[in-house]
């Protein structure tokens, strides 16, 4: 029996495709975000509010991932920007190859901002690099304020935490200071904004982060 050292990444093939996507985005000046949350945290509604506020000529495109249905793509397409649904048929995350395949349908020269809504899941999408500039994690106040400690992987990798559904704070036992502390324990550098896509509260802080981060 011989033991041979390997030093190969398990997701090396995904990482290779993601690196090629990242290089292409850089070359074309595309800023790309990977939005991750558990199901029902408000990713799609946040994107709807975001698209709604953009000027019609804004060079934005959206890829939205779900296990089944094109409901989200139909919701997002109402704002007049290019949208594609990625249906994973079972897989609990998007991978770089799915993104690459769907981008082949678009003229990338006409895109400046690419928003990728991942499949609703706080664990699985964590491992898969999609070539994005930054991961954004969304946590709704209808969930637990200890989620950053229970799912440290995604909070550790995200640059921004969006605390969503803050209009529900009077009705739920969510401690927003504890949630902030917990996120910073896992990732001292994480930025945090608080929004309600229903009332519009805090959306300006999310859009300001987006504009600031996109120029770097």
């Amino acid at each position, binding site marked *: 029996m011989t033991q041979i050292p*390997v030093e190969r990444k398990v997701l090396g093939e995904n990482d290779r495709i993601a690196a090629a996507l990242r290089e292409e985005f850089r070359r074309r000046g595309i800023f790309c975000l990977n939005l991750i949350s558990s199901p029902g945290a408000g990713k799609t509604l946040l994107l709807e509010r975001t698209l709604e506020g953009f000027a019609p000529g804004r060079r934005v495109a959206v890829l939205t991932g779900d296990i089944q249905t094109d409901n989200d793509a139909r919701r997002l397409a109402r704002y007049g920007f290019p949208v594609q649904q990625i249906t994973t048929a079972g897989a609990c995350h998007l991978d770089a190859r799915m993104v690459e395949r769907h981008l082949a349908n678009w003229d990338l020269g006409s895109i400046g901002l690419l928003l990728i809504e991942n499949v609703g899941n706080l664990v699985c999408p964590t491992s898969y690099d999609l070539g994005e500039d930054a991961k954004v994690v969304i946590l709704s106040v209808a969930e637990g304020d200890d989620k950053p400690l229970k799912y440290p992987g995604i909070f550790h990798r995200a640059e921004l935490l969006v605390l969503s559904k803050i209009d529900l704070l009077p009705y739920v036992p969510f401690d927003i200071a504890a949630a902030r502390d917990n996120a910073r324990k896992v990732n001292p550098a994480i930025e945090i904004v608080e929004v309600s896509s229903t009332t519009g509260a805090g959306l300006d802080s999310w859009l300001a982060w987006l504009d600031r981060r996109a120029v770097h």
Partner: protein
Amino acid sequence: MTNRRRPRGPDVHELSIAQSVVEAVEKELENQPGALLRKIGLRIGELSGVDADSLRFSWECLTRETGFEGVALAIETRAWQRRCPPCELIFAVSDFQTVCPQCGTQETEHAGGNELDIAYLELETP
């Protein structure tokens, strides 16, 4: 090793990871003609989002009746680690304490815990 069934139906994350292990190891075995694979050594970080038990279970399901059936997975888990720039200490984070235990610096850097690597293969060579 070419008799590979694709997973069907509802997926879990670790099943995709197990599939990726198969693909990565197949590539590695191209350089080892005739060798019989016995064991795969994996390194999995605490922050990788991959659960060792789920991966073992997925591995058994995925490789049943394929060329990889019976190949053992040896999983070494790696702690979440931070590095302190002033005193160059690398320490394991426990209870989410990212402050340097030696000098108290708060500005420590990521130093490990995201690993999802194949470390070694154990082979029987002809």
